[in-house]
């Protein structure tokens, strides 16, 4: 026990001596937590619109006004032909082309039918899809208005109507930040904790001080514990700072209990750090350790469900997420913070993460050899 105490003191001295690392550990996560969620927004506004109006009629002007007034679109170009408009899209000055054909108004009134062409820059399929469906909805709406002007409404209303009401639970304002901040916080705790842990033992190897450690009567588990506890505390401190920041900046207060979050985070960190130390016992140099951990981290994060929902992934990728501790942490954070899920709801997650913690640490202790 006394040996462990001294080990811990040594580790803390080493951490606090390095001002730059302290800054990176505390300042960078805070800054990222403040800035990055601002960037996350799938809602599309300000779609740059290029209009080719070949009709110049009252209706075409009305339609344009209607489209612009919704606020989704920004008229950036007015071309005289579709070909010119394509050029504008190529130069990235517009993302959507709306072509109103010659005779738009007269065809509509005389022949009951007319056609508008929408062309979207589909390099980003998601943005293009949304932009197209927005503009489509506006045109449909416009169509309805025109129809009401000309035809009595009674005929349309006598048809059976299924009314659909929809409600959005847990995040009625549909605020993306509520969804992303807990996820990003989970990610930051993970990155910093894992990186520091995976580099730590290697650093002693590289500096040669590991030999000195090996000749002391310190037990293997004591050595691993001495490495684990400081980063475990740091991880929880970062988590706390993160919660303070997200409360001050975004007003996020978990719907569930803090106690449950910290309980899960505590176990999760043990698992994560265990895995970090395990990779660390493998590597010979810091560069190597960093690359291996960067590689693992990248796969963990990409398959962790932060950017795209896990349910959408193909089966093989979903199977990988079952053995990914990060995906459990992100999910649990979101469930507790947004939905207020309780311990019973998270029983499965707790069980699995405990299993991870035991396995990884056992591996780390087993793989750390006092003799080389």
């Amino acid at each position, binding site marked *: 026990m006394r040996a462990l105490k001294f080990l811990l003191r040594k580790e803390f001295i080493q951490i606090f001596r390095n001002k730059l690392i302290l800054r990176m550990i505390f300042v960078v996560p805070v800054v990222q937590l403040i800035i990055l969620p601002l960037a996350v927004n799938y809602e599309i506004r300000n779609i740059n619109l290029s209009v080719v109006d070949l009709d110049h009629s009252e209706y075409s002007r009305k339609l344009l006004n209607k489209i612009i007034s919704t606020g989704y679109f920004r008229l950036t170009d007015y071309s005289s032909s579709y070909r010119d408009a394509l050029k504008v899209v190529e130069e990235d000055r517009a993302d959507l082309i709306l072509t109103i054909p010659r005779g738009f108004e007269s065809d509509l009134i005389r022949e*009951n039918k007319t056609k508008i062409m929408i062309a979207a820059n589909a390099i980003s399929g998601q943005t293009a899809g949304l932009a197209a469906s927005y503009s489509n909805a506006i*045109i449909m709406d416009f169509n309805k208005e025109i129809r009401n002007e000309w035809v009595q409404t009674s005929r349309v209303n006598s048809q059976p109507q299924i009314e659909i009401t929809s409600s959005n639970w847990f995040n009625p304002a549909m605020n993306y930040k509520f969804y992303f901040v807990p996820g990003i916080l989970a990610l930051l705790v993970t990155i910093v904790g894992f990186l520091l842990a995976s580099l730590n033992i290697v650093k002693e190897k590289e500096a040669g001080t590991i030999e000195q450690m090996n000749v002391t009567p310190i037990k293997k588990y004591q050595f691993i514990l001495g490495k684990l506890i400081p980063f475990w505390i740091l991880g929880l401190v970062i988590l706390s700072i993160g919660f303070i920041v997200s409360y001050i900046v975004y007003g996020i207060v978990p719907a569930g209990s803090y106690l449950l979050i910290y309980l899960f985070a505590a176990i999760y960190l043990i698992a994560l750090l265990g895995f970090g130390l395990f990779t660390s016992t493998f590597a010979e140099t810091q*560069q190597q350790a960093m*690359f291996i951990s960067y590689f693992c981290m990248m796969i963990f994060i990409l398959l962790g469900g932060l950017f795209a929902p896990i*349910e959408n992934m193909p089966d093989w990728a979903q199977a990988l997420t079952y053995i990914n501790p990060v995906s459990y942490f992100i999910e649990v954070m979101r469930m507790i913070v947004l939905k207020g899920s309780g311990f019973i709801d998270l029983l499965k997650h707790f069980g699995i993460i405990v299993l991870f913690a035991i396995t990884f640490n056992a591996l780390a202790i087993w793989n750390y050899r006092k003799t080389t």
Partner: protein
Amino acid sequence: MKQLLSFIKKEFNHILRDKRTMLVLFGMPVVQLIIFGFAITTEVRNARIAILDNSKDEITQKLIMRIESTEYFEIERTIKTDTQIEDAFKSGRIKLALVFQPNFQNELSHNNSAQIQIIADATDPNQATTLTNYVRSVVMDYQSELIKPDNLPLTIETELRMLYNPQLKGAYMSVPGVMGLILLLISAMMTSISVVREKEFGTMEILLVSPMKPWLVIISKAIPYFLLSIINVITILFLSVLLLDMPIHGSLFLLSAITILYILCALSLGLLISTVTSSQLAAMLISLVGLMLPVVMLSGYAFPIANMPDLLQWLSNLSPAKWFIIIIKNVMIKGVGIEGVWKETLVITVMTLIFLLISIKRFKIRLQ
């Protein structure tokens, strides 16, 4: 010249000796492309939903069949009451619940109106909106079949055309993103670490007192990573054309020239990082925490830049990856020539020069 070559050889030996790092170095782009190309998608698939059918009549059964037959949804059948819905949401078993009012068919045929309530788990607003829209469109389709075929007067039809990417493939966004990210990280991180490593070991001193000019020492550090990056670019391009069906519409020469410029930019950023840090750990933390997340989030590849607040839009200009990704998209997908991307190219060139200038200024040939 001979000296320089032997220095470069030394660096290569350092790199090639380390098999694990090599594996990661070349494996990373492959794994990332596969994950981005096949695993990460916002397309909904097999979302679990609950249906509370309070009416159990012909129409609701038909609607349920319709919903089930799409590949978007999988129906969770164990949920039978209102109270179970909330529990199912909280434990994450379902993403959406659909509630039919009692006497659905009766109401619809006699009062011309019946109600369906959709409850979505909006923790992920994006997914919630998409799912709600899918359910809506299934119901709407069904409804329009109920209405007797009757040509509505004065119809405006819309014809939709998807430019450049008619099949809406995700690779068109992810390949340029992965290229921007990997090249920046590998070149910047690896060079900064390998320079700082010598400082940490004290071998930098030995290199500096050698007859080599200090800047040649640094150049010899950068060249191996430059070559490795080029190999990576070739792998990425091959994989994206063969595996992900990415087109290369523009000139391959232009693409290569700009990619080389971008690698140089990343290398000089790496040198800059190495001049401001003195430990490998610090260099890594800066390149990882300081570069990775901002590059992913602010380069316009995960989230559209136009939607960001002004401050972030301005900040995103500082990321070389943003400019590189724009160029790659324009050249590879749109087939634009140099006349269409010279501005972005100029920005990257200027950034490279600035990084180099600061690193030369800050590079100390003496140790304290």
